[in-house]
């Protein structure tokens, strides 16, 4: 009975041997792939996603706050509650019709923009899609939330930060937040950190201050925390 029976079961294990070690190798490969994915996701992805831009003019906020006393000189509320936002040449030329100093950035501004009657195309860190009705007056005047709570301590900076543009959406990285994880300090916590003492508006925020992100969840969390409403009505923001 030595004749091999092609249908005999004993032949099978011999065939399996050819694949011995495949499972551990597969598992190993899966782990490597997972690791690579993690690397791509956490390291490469954010680098690819954002394009870095320098602002057209390196504006010195600290100097202007120092000269003008507060933010209101340039970012003011109208009587009707409207907010002026980022000033245009109209406001800048109240002082800078011509250069008043020797700073190359100021000279660049005057020569490239004022004389040519062009508006500066600022990269706006806080620009968002116009999906909601947002009133600065309601938040800052009514809710007494400081500017830094949402915009960070911009007002004390001597140089403008680089602007990271999301290549897909075209908006700033600040909206999602600097950390790609999207995990951030809650806005009201940031507010508390930013203003711990009486002289709150006179000093830059401490080192452990992190800028909150500006997504809908952040709005909702803050409304929940500060207004004590369980669930904000959609129409409050989406008119």
């Amino acid at each position, binding site marked *: 009975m030595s004749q091999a029976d092609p249908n005999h079961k004993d032949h099978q294990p011999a065939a399996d041997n050819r694949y011995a070690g495949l499972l551990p*190798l597969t598992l190993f490969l899966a782990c*490597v792939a997972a690791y690579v994915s993690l690397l791509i996701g956490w390291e490469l992805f954010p680098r690819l996603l954002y394009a870095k831009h320098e602002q057209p003019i390196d504006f010195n906020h600290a100097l202007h706050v120092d000269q003008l006393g507060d933010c209101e000189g340039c970012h003011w509320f109208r009587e009707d509650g409207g907010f002026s936002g980022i000033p245009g040449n109209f406001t800048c030329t109240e002082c800078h019709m011509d250069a008043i100093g020797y700073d190359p950035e100021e000279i660049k501004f005057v020569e490239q923009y004022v004389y040519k009657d062009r508006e500066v195309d600022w990269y706006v860190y806080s620009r968002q899609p116009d999906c909601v009705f947002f009133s600065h007056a309601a938040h800052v005047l009514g809710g007494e939330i400081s500017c830094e709570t949402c915009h960070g301590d911009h007002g004390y900076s001597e140089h403008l930060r680089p602007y990271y543009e999301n290549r897909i959406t075209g908006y700033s990285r600040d909206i999602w937040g600097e950390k*790609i994880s999207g995990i951030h300090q809650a806005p009201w916590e940031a507010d508390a950190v930013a203003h711990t003492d009486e002289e709150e508006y006179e000093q830059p925020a401490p080192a452990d201050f992190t800028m909150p992100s500006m997504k809908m969840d952040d709005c909702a969390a803050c409304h929940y925390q500060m207004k004590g409403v369980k669930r904000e009505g959609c129409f409050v923001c989406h008119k």
Partner: protein
Amino acid sequence: MKFDRRTFLTLGLGAVAGGAVGINFTPVPWKLTDDVSIWTQNWPWTPVPQTGETSYKQTTCTLCPGGCGVSVRKVGKRCVKIEGTEGHPVNNGGVCLLGNSGLQYLYGPDRVRGPMKRAGRRGEGRFIEITWEEAISEVAEKLAKIRAAGKPHTVACMTGAQQDTVSALFARFLEAYGSPNLFKSPTAWDTQRLSARLMCGLDAAVGYDLDNADYILSFGSGLIDGWGSPVHHLANYGAWHDPDTKEKAYLVQAEPRLSLTAAKADAWVAVNPGAEGPLALAMVHVIIADGLYDKNFVNSYTTRFEDWTDPDGRQQAGFKRTVLENYSPDKLAKITGVAPERVRKIAREFARARKPVAICGTAQGDQAAALYHVMAVQALNALAGNINRPGGMQILEAEGPFPWPDVQKDAKAEKGLEKPRLDAPAAKPYPLADGLIHAFAGAVLAQKPYPVEALLVAGGDPAYFLPRASEAKKALSAIPLVVSFSPVFNDTAMYADYILPDDLYLESVRDVPSPPGLVPRVVGLTRAVTDPVYASRPAGDSLIAIAKAMGGTVAGSFAWKNYQAALKQAMGGKWRTLSSKGYWIDESPAPSWTQLFGGKRFSFCPTPPAGGRTGMKPQPLVVDIPGDAKSMPLLAVPVKSMQLENGQMAATPFMMKTIPDTVLDKADVLVVEVNPQTAGKLGIGNRKAARLATPFGEADVLVVHNEGVMPGLVGLPCGFGHAGYSRFVRGKGANYHALSGAVADPLTGHDVAWGVRARLTQA
């Protein structure tokens, strides 16, 4: 280990699975989902608001004659909202529906985007774009040819109701060119001015100091339906009903239909249609009979109140005797339909009020009024002694001719100007006629006294607003050259050979005459709030360019560099204030009676300029609407409201959205109001379809029962049935003007029809 297909697949799957699991522990899927959703919001066809610095620019609204100051909110270069200008003497922050939605005119997709030449049939609305150079030279060439042929008088020109510098330039052009045929849309304000000229002997505009009056007797004036300066009067109305206002005014509204103004008035007098004048006379009777008139004024500053002797030495009955003998409330009750007791009560209240005023000009005042009516109302004011008194009727300095150099005229111009006007045959029977625009179409079609070679339409919308609009359209089709200067494809522009689009009030500088009836006078200025959105040009500049291209004395009469220069010269001393503040307000105190009349007197029975010995005695005139009362037993009357129409511009898309289906049915059928009693007789149920026929046309309508309209009348909302304008307005409902015909005033010859004969049949 054998490396075969199976191994490859297994290892590959393992790696993919590992990668897939791994990637889920990174932000990639979540962040990408979020980003892609935001990316979809930035697709180029998704409308998004502009970004940029917010600013406010001031201008004056010209969508109606109201003259409101408006403040335009801009974001970057884009205008985003129109609000009323706070502190402006006309509207103090208020704005109406039309003014509020003016940006829909500015950016609307159906504006005339540049000079156009007709490519299709007349009225079809097919045009091709041409350059400005072509437009100017072609129009100038054609006009020069007509002139060279010795027929300058065959060129006619129409301007709107507003007498601003642009219409004055067009009048000047006609004079230099050599045509007497200037036509302007007459309004109730023109009739009041004429009446003041006759009775006070002064060429002056008439105003009413409603801000200070405490008893307002309105003969059909739609104080909150768009009369005079609409927002100003709305604000007044609001102030009278504000609990904090100490001095409240009492408003009596006399009109045959329960209009918004009547509904909101303190008292509504349902007078028979067209009988407002006789009602005023009946009140005059009560005031004289009771001796309640201002004796100081009547004795010292008026004439022909008592019997008088004419230049032939014959004794003439004075105003007092004529009224006392003929026009008691009882005698006129049949005409007015108002109980004599009610007339007496109101007349006494009026005369005893501290600051009473009587006003006229039906509905929005945009149609000429019967001269006898206006004279009766002015007599009421004279008896109340309120002329130039706070709260009374004011005699305002008229905008005189602008201080421009004299027009240069060559022999051709002189000869052309000697020719009779086109409306001369139609105007013959009327002693006070001064240009009958409603006779224009008939003259064109009859080619009498001569054929019309060209028409310049500098304002107004004759194809829509002229009575018997179908005839007007035929006439426009019959004129070889029609040039429109309209910034929008209005009904008339559809018939033009050339459209040389004007700027809108947000795009260039232009004067805005003082709103009709407003006290004090406020002259406004429009300003370039934005660069022109399309290739439009100020009509003044187009005209100056045409004149220059024609050369000779025509060019010589237009020696200015551009329209701005002509405007500046015209405004004279007002220019500085105007250009810095945006408006000029007349701060001079109202002249006293002695200063005002300066030796002359207010005449109760004035002598018409054409002469006549007897003077114009008061008449209880009711304008008769002709037609066969058997086949057309009803009378259709126009219903005006600011929501539907204000001035000569059609409603904006936004306004259309506010119109309820009690005015325009869902299927765009016009809803007409009929008293249930009348509807019952006709057997037409509420909200039932019917066919409306007038001697001039027919329309499908929906009948709504409404007790606010007198039996026998059909209330027809105005402002619908446009053939031009935008896709949002066109072809909805029916046009009242197209269905109505003109009825001439016995003195002025102006169209003073208050309605049209009509028949309703169940559909």
